[in-house]
């Protein structure tokens, strides 16, 4: 360990630590643009200047290693003046775009300007005009005037995605980010460049101009997009979710996530949701409150059970629910309905084991491991074929399906519906409307469930890591969790306290009563 002093505070750091890392470790602020903990050091923005006792010139903190006994500061007037000038140089050709820039509110230039702005600009030159609103690819828009040439995005495509699309072309004040022959920036991780761009040069096509970021709140969660389980922050307001961005976790996803995972907010929002239960069959459908529909379905289920015996009820589970929900649902099925006919619906068996070498996995469920563990614990191991045989024999009269909330990764859903066509009663639990279900000829219950962001629980990822998360926000308040739905199906009452808790949490998070920072 090396000892050093940062702004008067004693800090101990391991050998090989850079000064900027030592600043972070000691919890002190330091201005910087080009340095990013997940990328190599470039040392190009010159904003991270520090003064080191005994050295005549200022040094950049990102590319200087701590040595034992170093006395470092970044709060002397010399350092502040240099940072002020550094920032002013970054702004020479920067357009006055803040009012129409999507980065406003989370922009590195704005943030640093609060502290290091010159406020009276000393630059009399005309600004160099460059390309704006460049369609960089399917997900990203580029504004070359706003770019401060920190090269983070270039290093990302070189070092992380290893797709090498981006480069800095031309020279001096004409330098700009681009791709060779204007080819599209098109890789499975492209939106990470938007996250790490400290300014509004790279913006997300999906998110830009949809919300001002200062009106959004953040909740921590785990991406349900695949079995990697990247840690994420979701950004939401009272209308629903607006974007998903990665949250650092060294063991799981580092600083990154894939583009596909960022779409996992879409099936959460009201537009894509089932807001009421649908009960009936193809000639007549009725809307019901989710809770009472589940109760009614439970009555039906019990009736059948009494006349046909426990082998007449089966449960199909997808890998899209929390471990706690599986345990509750499997437990209730066994204890209350006496049934062990519980099956695992695998959506894409051919590509289940795929892995792209970075994050993306072929198993497009967040909790396959959790489901398998819960089944094992309950001593249940039934092959899919067993279900098919029983369906064929007509012995199953009531089928409860915990369908996928992310339906886009279940290409076989229609096929499964066809398989379940002949079952007398079908109880389909899921967050969104299920295409094809409305044509079913026999009694059907579609009961809306909550999505991952609306409940607390945990997912077990591909490596067996159990990751817990809390309720982020509630989008459809009447929807049930899988555990609640199965409780009602089993003829039991819901404990009100659980719901109350959620409501209370929700009130606490109420948009306008949350404490705001000082102006």
């Amino acid at each position, binding site marked *: 360990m090396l000892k050093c002093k940062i702004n008067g505070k004693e800090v101990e750091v391991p050998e090989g630590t850079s000064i900027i890392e030592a600043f972070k470790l000691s919890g002190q602020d330091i201005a910087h643009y080009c340095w990013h903990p997940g990328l190599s050091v470039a040392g190009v923005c010159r904003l991270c200047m520090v003064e080191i006792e005994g050295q005549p010139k200022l040094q950049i903190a990102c590319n200087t290693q701590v040595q034992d006994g170093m006395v470092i500061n970044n709060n002397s007037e010399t350092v502040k003046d240099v940072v002020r000038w550094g920032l002013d140089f970054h702004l020479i050709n920067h357009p006055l775009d803040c009012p129409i820039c999507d980065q406003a509110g989370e922009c590195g230039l704005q943030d640093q300007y609060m502290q290091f702005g010159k406020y009276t600009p000393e630059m009399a030159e005309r600004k160099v005009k460059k390309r704006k609103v460049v369609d960089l690819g399917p997900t990203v828009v580029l504004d070359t005037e706003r770019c401060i040439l920190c090269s983070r995005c*270039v290093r990302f495509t*070189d070092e992380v995605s290893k797709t*090498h699309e981006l*480069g800095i*072309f*031309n*020279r001096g004040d004409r330098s700009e980010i681009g791709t*060779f*022959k204007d080819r599209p920036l098109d890789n499975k991780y492209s939106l990470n460049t938007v996250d790490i761009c400290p300014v509004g040069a790279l913006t997300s096509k999906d998110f830009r101009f949809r919300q001002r970021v200062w009106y959004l709140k953040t909740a921590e969660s785990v991406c349900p997009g695949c079995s990697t389980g990247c840690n994420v922050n979701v950004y939401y307001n009272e209308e629903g979710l607006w974007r998903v961005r990665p949250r650092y976790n060294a063991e799981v996803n580092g600083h990154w996530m894939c583009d596909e995972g960022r779409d996992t907010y879409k099936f959460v929002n009201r537009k894509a949701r089932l807001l009421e239960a649908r009960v009936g069959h193809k000639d007549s459908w009725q809307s019901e409150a989710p809770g009472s529909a589940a109760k009614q379905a439970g009555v039906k289920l019990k009736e059948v059970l009494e006349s046909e015996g426990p082998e007449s009820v089966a449960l199909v589970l997808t890998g899209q629910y929390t471990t706690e929900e599986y345990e509750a649902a499997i437990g209730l099925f066994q204890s209350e309905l006496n049934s062990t006919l519980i099956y695992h619906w695998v959506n894409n068996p051919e590509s289940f084991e795929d892995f792209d070498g970075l994050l993306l996995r072929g198993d497009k469920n967040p909790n396959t491991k959790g489901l398998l563990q819960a089944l094992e614990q309950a001593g249940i191991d039934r092959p899919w074929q067993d279900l098919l045989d029983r369906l064929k024999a007509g012995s199953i009269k009531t089928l409860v399906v915990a369908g996928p909330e992310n339906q886009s990764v279940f290409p076989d859903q229609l096929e499964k519906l066809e398989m379940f066509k002949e079952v007398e009663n079908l109880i389909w639990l899921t967050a969104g409307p299920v295409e094809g279900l409305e044509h079913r000829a026999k009694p059907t219950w579609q009961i809306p469930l909550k999505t991952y962001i609306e409940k607390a629980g945990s997912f077990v990822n591909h490596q067996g890591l159990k990751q817990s998360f809390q309720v982020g926000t509630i989008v459809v308040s009447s929807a049930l969790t899988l555990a609640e739905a199965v409780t009602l199906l089993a003829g039991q009452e819901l404990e009100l306290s659980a719901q109350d808790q959620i409501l209370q949490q929700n009130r606490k998070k109420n948009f306008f009563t949350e404490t705001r920072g000082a102006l």
Partner: protein
Amino acid sequence: MSGFQLSAEGVEFVKSELKRYETRLSAVIPCLYRVQKENQGWVSPESVSYLSQLMDIPEAHINEVLSFYTMFNREPVGRHHVQVCCNISCAMNGARELTEKICKELDVKEGEVSKDGKVTVTRVECLGSCGTAPMMQINDRYYENLTSDSALKIIRELK
């Protein structure tokens, strides 16, 4: 692969340059020069793709180097590339007027290829020969201590 390819010696040159420096990226400049030489004086996008494959360096990074240095031409040039220095010493000795005269004599606009494909005239920054200003470079040769007469004579003698 269609389009540009280096000669066998060119390929050998690239391979030896790649071994010569600490990092492979350092070989980009000499290799681009070689390409320019073998491609009628300019570096086409196709040749960047070709070089990228040959050197196993992403096209974007070769393009970074290519677009940084003005010594590489990214558009076709005439058989004779006349580069007139117009930096301080040369400018003070009439280089800018000289450039205009040369263009007029050749009936060509600055930076463009003459209709017969023979010449391109461009203004460039200091070529490091200030002591003999004004001066110009035609392909690989320097012509120094120019007067308008001597310059035009040289121009007229271009084949």
